């Protein structure tokens, strides 16, 4: 019954939720803020309000349907045949949800295609209400209505997850009160003094950071409990819990603290912490729009004018520092790292009180806090880097006339963003230093955190120049759009955060370093302030372009995996992975085929056929080496999913031993390795397969990197020596096939 409720209600509500989140923030009204005649803008604003009200009504309707079903569930009087909901209602709701999804998709597409100038982009944050000819009261009412609708759907979702209708309505009331209070405050924020804005910015950051932390913490609890075999999560359904965690919008720089209502309700036992965080978050959520606006508003500029003492000398670094100081009060600037520190301190105190039963020891809490700071610090650096690049783009006529070397610009900006990023290490350091002596492992992890923050700050600056620099921002900013560059930044960062074992961490960290070096090399080309468009001057390196295409591979895989729920239900879960990989693999191959035209292509068949035999034997040898490593160094045994059906097993076999080798070798050896070769000095060209193998292993997040690196080396050397892709594909295929066969035999045999 639970799964039925989930399938019928939770799915649509989740979809609504996602759709609304996107529409609210990435905004169909975005276009309405362009440079159009005033009347048109207003008209567009009115139309969009109508649209939004329509959406709210749909959500209220959907929520009502869900609540009816929930009532049945709670009363435990469900008929044997399922819940009685008119099929018409559900299909209508589904239709609307599809329309919403389509609308979101099209608006997103338009955002990416139209590439508005950044001046317009900053105005998007003002929210749609400011575009309307409404009185403050009417605005407050409109805001209330949309908040209420949003909250209702959310509360419904929360109620389903927690099984408590009362809890849902308490959350709803809390939300509405907070949202309205926030809106009323926001109306007045325009006239607030600078210090008060600083405090607001700080409170907002605290709320966001706490909400991120809480969700991550809960996620960690769920994960560790599942690991320990304690699947029961205090009576709640672990899969709903997972769905809740999965709601996390991965492509958003900040978080919708409304998720916290669900968290607070779901974990009624956490009461205090969750409620405080949720309440604070919600108030700040409503303030967010306005605060973000005031951060860059005239108001702060006015305040900046009253600052005493002009700087006499301003280096590139100095100018960055001064501009940052002028842009926002210090509390607003330090808000995120401070909030991160305070949030972790509060969380650790809470943990010490023993109120939160984690089921794992203190080192894991420390590991969690390190991962948390990596994530928040990484994202905050991206935002800061984006700001500094925006300043430079605006001052381009000045900079273009000055003798500034591109690397000097990158260095100065990187130094500032790095100094900021490293402040995020304070939280875990506090945690480790306060409660007990730090272990060697923890000290190493802390050093790793600092290195990762330094490197990712540098990467963020380079990526900001690559995406926004040169006077021609490529696509929408706001830290919200999913760009291939961001995926590339995140993959190694997640690797460092979540891979297990020191060797795997080192692999991920090193790949972050290599990626940074390449991004920096590419960015140096885009800091030259040339006016030529992309077609005339290459502003990216061939290697970076190749990497970008791989950046497309991950999101495509995730999206297809998410969409495949429609085709494959829970019982055929393994097929989802097959479908997702197969489709994204095909896309990768097509993109490679289309975009690698600047590189000499390698033929598939070698000139001498015996290279194929060598390829197959090398695959077997690499498999043998892997087995030795896994058994004798790691002390484990690879095993496959023993419940998988025969057909799924067969499909997996075709996937890993045919499709994956062909696609991956075509990309890694056929393009990336060639691109690296073309960039290396002649005497080093023979070694291009080493960085290619490294990239090959680094993208396999969650796997043991060393064996994959070795396989990459073997395949790369084969491609280089035979001047063809066939032997490398064969080696890869044989390796994968033997690994799968071995694992299946082990698990079936064991069973």
């Amino acid at each position, binding site marked *: 019954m639970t799964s039925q409720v989930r399938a019928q209600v939770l799915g649509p509500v989740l979809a609504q939720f996602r759709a609304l989140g996107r529409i609210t923030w990435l905004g169909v009204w975005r276009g309405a803020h362009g440079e159009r005649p005033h009347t048109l803008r207003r008209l567009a604003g009115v139309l969009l309000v109508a649209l939004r009200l329509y959406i709210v009504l749909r959500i209220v309707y959907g929520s009502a349907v869900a609540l009816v079903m929930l009532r049945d569930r709670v009363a435990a009087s469900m008929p044997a045949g399922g819940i009685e909901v008119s099929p018409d209602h559900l299909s209508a709701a589904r239709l609307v949800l599809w329309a919403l999804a389509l609308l979101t998709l099209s608006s997103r597409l338009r955002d990416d295609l139209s590439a508005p100038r950044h001046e317009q982009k900053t105005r998007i944050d003002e929210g749609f209400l400011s575009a309307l000819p409404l009185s403050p009261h009417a605005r407050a009412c409109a805001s209330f209505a949309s908040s209420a609708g949003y909250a209702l759907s959310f509360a419904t979702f929360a109620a389903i997850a927690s099984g408590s209708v009362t809890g849902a309505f308490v959350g709803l009331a809390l939300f509405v009160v907070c949202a309205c209070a926030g809106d009323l405050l926001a109306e007045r924020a325009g006239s607030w003094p600078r210090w008060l804005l600083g405090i607001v910015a700080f409170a907002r950051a605290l709320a966001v950071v706490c909400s991120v932390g809480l969700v991550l913490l809960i996620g960690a609890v769920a994960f560790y409990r599942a690991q320990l075999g304690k699947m029961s999560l205090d009576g709640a359904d672990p899969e709903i819990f997972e769905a809740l965690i999965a709601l996390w919008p991965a492509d958003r720089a900040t978080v919708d603290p409304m998720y916290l209502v669900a968290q607070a309700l779901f974990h009624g036992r956490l009461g205090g912490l969750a409620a405080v965080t949720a309440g604070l978050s919600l108030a700040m959520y409503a303030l967010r729009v306005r605060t973000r606006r005031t951060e860059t508003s005239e108001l702060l500029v006015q305040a900046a004018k009253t600052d005493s003492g002009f700087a*006499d000398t*301003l280096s*590139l670094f100095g100018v960055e520092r001064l501009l940052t100081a002028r*842009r926002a009060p210090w509390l607003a600037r330090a808000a995120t790292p401070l909030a991160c520190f305070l949030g972790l301190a509060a969380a650790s105190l809470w943990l010490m009180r023993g109120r939160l039963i984690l089921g794992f020891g203190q080192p894991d809490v420390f590991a969690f806090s390190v991962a948390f700071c990596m994530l928040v610090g990484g994202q905050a650096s991206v935002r800061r880097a984006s700001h500094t690049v925006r300043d430079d783009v605006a001052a381009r006529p*000045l900079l*273009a006339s000055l*003798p*500034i070397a591109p690397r000097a610009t990158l260095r100065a900006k990187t130094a500032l963003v790095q100094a900021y990023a490293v402040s995020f290490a304070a939280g875990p350091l506090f945690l480790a230093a306060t409660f007990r002596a730090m272990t060697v492992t923890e000290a190493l992890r802390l050093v790793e955190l600092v290195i990762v923050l330094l490197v990712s700050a540098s990467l963020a600056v380079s990526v900001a120049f690559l995406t926004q620099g040169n006077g021609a921002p490529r696509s929408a900013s706001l830290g919200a759009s999913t760009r291939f560059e961001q995926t590339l930044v995140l993959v190694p960062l997640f690797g460092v955060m979540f891979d297990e074992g020191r060797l795997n961490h080192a692999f991920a960290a090193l790949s972050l370093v290599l990626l940074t070096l390449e991004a920096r090399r590419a960015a140096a080309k885009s800091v030259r302030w040339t006016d*030529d468009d992309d077609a*005339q001057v290459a502003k990216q390196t061939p290697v970076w372009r190749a990497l970008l295409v791989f950046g497309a591979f991950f999101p495509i895989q995730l999206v297809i995996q998410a969409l495949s729920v429609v085709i494959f239900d829970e019982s055929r879960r393994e097929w989802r992975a097959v479908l997702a990989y197969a489709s994204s693999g095909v896309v990768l191959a097509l993109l490679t085929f289309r975009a690698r035209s600047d590189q000499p292509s390698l033929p598939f068949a070698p000139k001498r056929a015996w290279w194929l035999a060598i390829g197959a034997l090398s695959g077997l040898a690499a498999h043998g080496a892997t087995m030795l490593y896994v058994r004798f160094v790691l002390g484990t045994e690879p095993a496959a999913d023993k419940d998988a059906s025969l057909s799924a097993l067969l499909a997996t076999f075709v996937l890993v031993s045919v499709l994956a080798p062909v696609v991956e070798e075509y990309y890694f050896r056929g393009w990336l390795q060639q691109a690296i070769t073309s960039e290396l000095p002649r005497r080093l060209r023979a070694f291009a397969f080493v960085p290619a193998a490294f990239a090959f292993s680094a993208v396999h997040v969650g796997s043991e990197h060393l064996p994959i690196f070795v396989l990459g080396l073997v395949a790369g050397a084969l491609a280089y020596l035979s001047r063809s892709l066939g032997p490398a594909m064969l080696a890869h295929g044989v390796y994968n096939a033997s690994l799968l066969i071995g694992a299946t035999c082990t698990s079936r045999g064991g069973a």
Partner: protein
Amino acid sequence: MSARLGAEGLTKTFAGRAALDGVSFTVDTAGVVGLLGPNGAGKTTTFKLLLGMLRPSAGRAEIGGHDCTNEPTLVRSVAGYMPDEPAFYDYLSGRETLAFVAEVRGLDPAAMWRWLDPLVHELAAETVLEGRCGAFSLGMRKKLALLVALAHQPKILLLDEPTNGLDPPSAAGARALFQRLAREHDTTVLLSTHLLDLAEKSCDRLLVLDRGKLVGDGSLAELRRVRDESLEAVFMRLVGKAPVASET
């Protein structure tokens, strides 16, 4: 070609259309050189090519012995450039912007201010120093851009529409300044303008561009076909819009 300022067959095409087509000139002496031409003739493109902000489709340009395309940083260190539409860091004052320029160019701030202070007075640019750049009008931005271009006392000055947006007294001050720089400081000033009055009063030599081609090069006296031919008549004739009457 090793001149102060020179171009050799300089060509730039945008989407197949030639914005500049085989332009060649050399400037070896101090003086004020006017780059004249109707809108879209390729004046700003010439400046951007000289400064290395664009890569030529063919030909080359050189400033102070440095190749404009391959050594843009060196070119920018010897030349001063004032763009047509200046922009600065919004949150800095004019004084801070100049402090930044001094630091980036490796100038001694005190020496820079000793040089700039009289110029500030001459251009009536006092208000430009203390206000925030983001709030400047076009005229104020032009003044600050001129100060930025002059900060390192360059021997080569590239000025794109320098008096555009300036009030009449400031424009007169700027004109006098250009001539003084050329006479007393051995400076080559290349300025683009479509104000024939400015060109006639202050330029020693004129380069006339039309649809990307150099159609006239010389002093006003050299460009005249008949005595007392006005610059306007010369200009109209060169850009192909000459009234036939002026020929007779």
